């Protein structure tokens, strides 16, 4: 016979204000199987918990229903109290009288009778609860970091320096990401590459870091502590072990006019190339889409030039399978191209460039060796117009958010230009100046006051060419909305920062959520900013939302700290709320018929095949089995199974049915 104890909490006035708790207590005492029913002002308090513990011992309770707040709030509290009194914690259930009843209804008899109903269904459920025991799963102490920009580099170094193993995957031929492309960084104007490249080298040389460049995540299965990742190492067409990085092949390559991705299309590269001189690793890669040999079947000039015979035209993509315990997604961002703006000439004007392209023009390692020359004819511009919020904060363009970094880098661009071209004129069209950050506002003021950058508050409606110049038509909203027309030699659009084009498919591969702009979604915007909803996967940098370098680095270190926290334990203990396939008497052994349609329904690949055999090894039937380590307890397989052969522990069909019948 069940001996159920019901404990009704007033939650101060939260519940007792609208629910007649004494009436609920009395009604609960009448439910068959209930041997103890009390109410108390705060059940979660120490005296409240002690009441539960004492009742369990004195009344020899076989189940406990705490009618109080949401289980999300205090279920662990009450289950722990039950466990301390010797009752299996999974024999304790909560009836949510607060969020589900008192907070959402007026004070009247109906509210109290709903509270009684809620208690009754939970009593019926608890009668059918079985003791459950936590599942322990081991933790693989290796982290997978996806993306080798500053976020990935920082996270990888932090984890590796703490003594744990890291696998860093970067899809470009070199790590470094966008930060390697930048000229100087705000607000200190220190050289981006100078501070980044030592870190890149540290990554390559770190004994705890395995670096895979020119590689992408192909698949990710498993769960926290036990992920299995498949990495596709794209064919570089170079034997990385024999290649010394001498560059003889690059010298010999006949194709020299391919737009360089690293130079944002402003410079040129060869078909066999290293993206930039400080690349890590400093090993070239053959761009198969351009290479003469791959397009026509003849050439192989590079192969002849290579002194160590490291060229491998027949190299195939390689798939590496690794086991990892945690994943850090640090895949970064992209910027909108100038072709996104019909009003600014659809990208057809060579002298309208993006902020990222300006970075390359201003960079000493860029296509112009740091001299600001306009792309069309190489003239040093006398007038440059910078347009902030190009695309950003514009719901009509589908980008309602602020790209966050543009105010600062536009001020920096204007400043860099003025430093290089003293007589030049720089105009900045802006909507608002958002310079929140340490030394940021001072930096913008410096651009305006010391470097005499003209800030025009207003938007640019149109840019069109006239006599070798660009006419920028806009409005100055601070001077009675006076129309402004500026003849510029070059225009720099601070185009919106957007998610990587394949961010959505990556999120689907990792089974994590993402927002409407395809930025990865953190588990909680304030309190869990680096965790993702899928346990064991963390996020760092601009793949989550637009961020500048300091913020990215801070978040990367935070993600690393979370990973290290996870790796500090050898085993993870998880709730036994998992699905199980039933067993029954012979000749059936299980009502599962082994159609395995649940296999594709499971989002976590938790369904396995299990052979039921006789003692002498003869196969009786093959049925489904749920891997308890992988199962997340979502119950999709339970709903799909036609013969109801799968049950969710703690939420079995029998329990749910009893709850419904009790209503």
């Amino acid at each position, binding site marked *: 016979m069940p001996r159920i104890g019901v404990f009704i909490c007033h939650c101060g006035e939260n519940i007792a204000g609208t629910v007649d708790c004494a009436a609920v207590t009395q009604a609960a005492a009448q439910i068959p199987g209930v041997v103890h029913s009390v109410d108390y002002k705060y059940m979660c308090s120490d005296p409240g918990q002690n009441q539960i513990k004492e009742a369990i011992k004195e009344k020899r309770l076989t189940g406990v229903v705490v009618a109080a707040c949401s289980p999300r709030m205090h279920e662990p509290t009450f289950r722990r109290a039950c466990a301390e009194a010797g009752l299996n914690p999974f024999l304790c259930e909560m009836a949510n009288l607060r969020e589900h009843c008192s907070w959402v209804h007026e004070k009247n008899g109906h509210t109290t009778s709903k509270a009684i109903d809620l208690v009754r269904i939970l009593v019926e459920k608890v009668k059918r609860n079985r003791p459950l025991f936590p599942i322990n799963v081991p933790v693989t102490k290796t982290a997978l970091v996806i993306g080798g920009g500053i976020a990935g580099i920082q996270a990888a170094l932090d984890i590796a320096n703490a003594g744990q193993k890291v696998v860093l995957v970067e899809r470009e031929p070199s790590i470094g990401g966008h930060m390697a492309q930048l000229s100087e960084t705000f607000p200190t104007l220190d050289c981006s590459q100078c501070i980044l490249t030592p870190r890149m080298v540290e990554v390559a040389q770190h004994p705890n870091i395995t670096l895979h460049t020119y590689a992408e995540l192909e698949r990710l299965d498993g769960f926290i502590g036990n992920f299995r990742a498949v990495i596709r190492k794209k064919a570089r067409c170079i034997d990385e072990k024999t290649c010394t990085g001498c560059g003889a092949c690059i010298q010999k390559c006949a194709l020299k006019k391919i737009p360089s991705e690293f130079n944002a299309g402003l410079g040129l590269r060869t078909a066999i190339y290293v993206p930039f001189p400080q690349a890590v690793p400093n090993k070239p890669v053959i761009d198969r889409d351009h290479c003469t040999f791959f397009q026509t079947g003849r050439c192989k000039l590079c192969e002849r030039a290579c002194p160590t015979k490291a060229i491998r035209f027949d190299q195939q993509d390689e798939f590496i399978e690794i086991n990892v315990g945690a994943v850090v997604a640090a895949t970064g961002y992209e910027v909108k191209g100038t072709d996104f703006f019909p009003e600014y000439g659809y990208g057809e004007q060579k002298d309208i460039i993006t902020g990222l392209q300006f970075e390359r023009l201003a960079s000493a390692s860029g296509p112009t060796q740091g001299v600001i020359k306009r792309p069309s004819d190489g003239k040093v511009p006398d007038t440059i117009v910078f347009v902030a919020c190009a695309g950003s904060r514009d719901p009509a363009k589908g980008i309602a958010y602020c790209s966050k970094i543009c105010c600062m880098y536009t001020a920096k661009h204007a400043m860099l230009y003025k430093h290089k071209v003293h007589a030049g004129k720089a105009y900045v069209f802006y909507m608002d100046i958002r310079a929140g950050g340490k030394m940021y506002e001072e930096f913008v003021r410096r651009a305006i006051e010391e470097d005499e950058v003209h800030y025009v508050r207003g938007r640019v409606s149109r840019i069109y060419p006239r006599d070798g110049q660009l006419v920028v038509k806009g409005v100055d909203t601070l001077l009675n909305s006076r129309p402004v027309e500026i003849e510029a030699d070059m225009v720099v659009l601070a185009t919106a920062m957007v998610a990587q084009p394949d961010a959505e498919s990556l999120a*689907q591969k990792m089974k994590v959520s993402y927002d409407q702009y395809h930025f990865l979604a953190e588990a909680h915007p304030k309190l869990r900013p680096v965790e993702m909803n899928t346990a064991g996967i963390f996020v760092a940098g601009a793949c989550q939302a637009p961020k500048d370098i300091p913020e990215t680095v801070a978040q990367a270190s935070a993600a690393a700290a979370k990973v290290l926290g996870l790796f500090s334990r050898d085993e993870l203990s998880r709730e036994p709320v998992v699905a199980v396939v039933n067993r*029954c008497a012979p000749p*059936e052994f299980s*009502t599962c*018929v*082994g*159609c*395995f*349609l*649940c*296999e*594709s*329904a499971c989002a976590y690949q938790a369904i396995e095949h299990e052979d039921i055999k006789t003692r002498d090894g003869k196969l009786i039937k*093959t049925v489904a089995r749920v891997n308890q380590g992988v199962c997340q307890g979502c119950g*999709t397989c339970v709903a*799909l199974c*036609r*013969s*109801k052969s799968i049950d969710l522990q703690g939420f079995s*069909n*029998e329990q749910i*049915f*009893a709850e419904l*019948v009790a209503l």
Partner: protein
Amino acid sequence: MESLQKKARALLEAAAVKVVIGYTAGSDAERARPLFARFPEQAQQLIYDARCRQNLATYLLKPEVQALGKAAVVARPATLRTILQYAVENRLVDEAVLALAVGDAGEITELANFAALEEYLAKLPRGLTTAEEQEIARLTGMPLEQRWAFWHAELERCIKCYACRAACPLCYCTRCITDVNQPQWLPVASSPLGNLEWNVVRAMHLAGRCIDCGSCADACPEGIRIDLLNRVLAQEAQAQFGAEPGYSTRREYALSTFKPDDKEEFIR
């Protein structure tokens, strides 16, 4: 018919199969019943004509039939589709069954494996006949209340004999959910609500799986057109998810497979 008998005889004589499952004359002129020919001389009892409507693939899963050894089965297109759906649902391994597809002119095509079945079915016309389409259109054209009343009236006649379940090749669970009493999801007795529950549950279990053989309606002693429920759901599954059960061994069960190009129009 003769070529079928000859083929069956040859197969049994050569012991290529242990049993030929086909049709033979039934208790009256209008009926055919299944024949399990195990000896060459039984082959002459085989018939094939308009009466032979039952989906014989159902028998392929019976332990008694499987115990006989390799089977050949006289197959209408629906039978072939069933075999492919069995492949999807892990019921049959490849080459375990020899399908004897009977063509329009009575010619027999031996289909020894799933690939051959797929190829054969790919050549046959798909979709509903005009008459079937009109039937569906009449049903879906009814206003919601009228359609609800129609099915209520239809299903009220159900006597819960489960003949549909026995005839259905895809109702192969060893313990049907109707037989579960812990908890008792569906009431045992025949009652309006219980009948509705049973038939709706069965239709949902077949959504995205039903290969539209019509055996359920043929088997119903009350003449309820339960096949229409399945057919409409099959149409829905096809329109929404491109589900075409029975035409391939690819496992793309509409209810459990997510594809990025799923329309998801039903989510609002």
